């Protein structure tokens, strides 16, 4: 459903991604792993329209989405979370998720300012749906809290709740387990599986190998901007090139 074709990204003199191609299958959890600086976040930034690639094409549901801005991709059902949490800090936890419902509602400035009947109903709807996603991610108790005051682990969860509220076809998560304790990581694994089982495709960048090997259906390995390997968790674990890269670089 997501096809990355020959993506290259050059920053000044540095080639962050070098002719990377792979495909992500529908309703699977695909892991993207690789040492620090391998180009994982850069890849996400290109897929989600935040950076423009130096070369290559991206197809989403067979549609060429190269050069689409993030807001347009959101409308198509492609969403992501951020490695460095990007919450709306001064807004409440519930309001954060309500922003995730932006594409699922349509009231404009006039309708909002004059509280036209359609808007009032929609607002109630959005509020209710936001509570649902908060519950899904175990955040019900925090709904009124200012997002900036959330404990770190809950902040990561809120990023996911907010992205899910969009009811995406595909969700890209950039290191959602970074900084989580064991209990939180297990909870995250459950939620990611539940997301996949509800029919949403998941792409997961992670350093936590246990988590990756545990929940991923397939894995892509990047190293120094190049694709090193691709396969099932089992195949990846046994791949000599991957073993060498990980042992060699650490």
């Amino acid at each position, binding site marked *: 459903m997501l096809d990355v074709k020959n993506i290259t990204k050059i920053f000044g003199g540095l080639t962050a991604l070098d002719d990377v191609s792979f495909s992500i299958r529908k309703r699977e959890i695909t892991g993207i792993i690789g040492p620090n600086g391998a180009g994982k976040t850069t890849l996400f930034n290109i897929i989600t329209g935040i950076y423009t690639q130096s070369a290559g094409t991206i197809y989403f549901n067979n549609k060429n989405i190269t050069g689409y801005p993030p*807001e347009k991709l959101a409308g198509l059902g492609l969403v992501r979370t951020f490695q460095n949490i990007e919450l709306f*800090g001064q807004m409440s936890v519930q309001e954060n998720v309500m922003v995730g419902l*932006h594409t699922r509602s349509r009231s404009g400035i006039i309708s*909002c300012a004059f509280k036209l009947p359609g808007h009032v109903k929609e607002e109630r709807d*959005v509020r209710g749906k936001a509570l649902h996603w908060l519950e899904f991610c175990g955040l019900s108790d925090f709904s009124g809290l200012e997002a900036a005051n959330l404990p770190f682990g809950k902040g990561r969860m809120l990023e996911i709740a907010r992205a899910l509220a*969009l009811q995406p076809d595909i969700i890209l998560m950039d290191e959602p387990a970074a900084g989580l304790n064991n209990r939180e990581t297990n909870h995250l694994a459950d939620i990611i599986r539940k997301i996949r089982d509800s029919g949403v495709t998941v792409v997961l960048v992670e350093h936590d190998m246990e988590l990756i090997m545990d929940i991923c259906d397939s894995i892509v390995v990047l190293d120094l901007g190049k694709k090193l390997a691709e396969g099932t968790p089992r195949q990846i674990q046994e791949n000599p090139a991957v073993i060498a890269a990980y042992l060699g670089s650490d």
Partner: protein
Amino acid sequence: MSHMKKEMIKFLLFTAAVIITPLFFSGGYLMNVLVFVGINTMLAIALNLLLGFAGQISLGHAAFFGLGSYISGVLTATHGFDPWLAMLIAAIATFLMAFLLGFPILKLKGHYLAMATLGFGIIVYISLNETVGLTGGPSGLSGIPNLQISSLLFDNDVKNFYLIWTFALVTILLSTNLANSRIGRALRAIHDSEIAARVMGVNASFLKVQIFALSALISAVAGSLYAHTMTFISPASFGFNFSVELVTMVVIGGLGSIYGSLLGAALLTLLPEFLRTFQDYDIIVYGLLLIVMTMFMPGGLVRGIPGLFGALLPKRMEGGGENA
């Protein structure tokens, strides 16, 4: 009680307060000052929508106020238009101008946006001064007619008070609605993280332009009201100093707080009336206020004052487990 109910009660209480105010100060000089508080409230809220909600600076907002004033003034005083029609034309024309200006200018961020809006303000100010044939230049434009509803002519302070505050209250009501809606959330989201807002599907660049144009429209309406209540206008009211004063009102009251803007507008309009000594040093006082506020009360008075009380009162026992 839901948030919106609280907002509604706050609004109704304030409306009641506005309605009875002339019963106490009728005819006095204060009535005249309160008319300006109403106009400045509209302007501060207009700027707050842009600065406090969307997080985009404008150092040229006095220009939109001036454009509204002068379009209304010239159309009525020189060309004999009906004042209400002139006001409508001023609002639409200023809105469209801001809309077109918004596309290139709001691509800029931070200091660059500040410089660009500052430049725009200066251009409008100089144009008002230099196009003497049209505006009357530095010596101003007089003979602007009052607004009128059938036989009711708005020609004294009490009538103007009710006229202006009707507009100010509508501005407060609509802005509060907007703030607590899908659009208000999208604006605040842009403020906190533009990139995350976009990933959530918010068309940030277009929404910024829309809110910039809306802000200009409210400022233009305030400008028309100003022209028709004063009956005389001159460019001096629409210069850089006033743009800075507007920013000061918004920051003092509290970025992103509608009632904060009301408070900021009231303070900065009333204070100089009592402290005549400000007169020539106003811009210095605004500068100092801005520095002090951003250093010690970055949330503005509406958040700062309760915070101050909170700090003075004994600490409540809340969730002290973690670090205790």
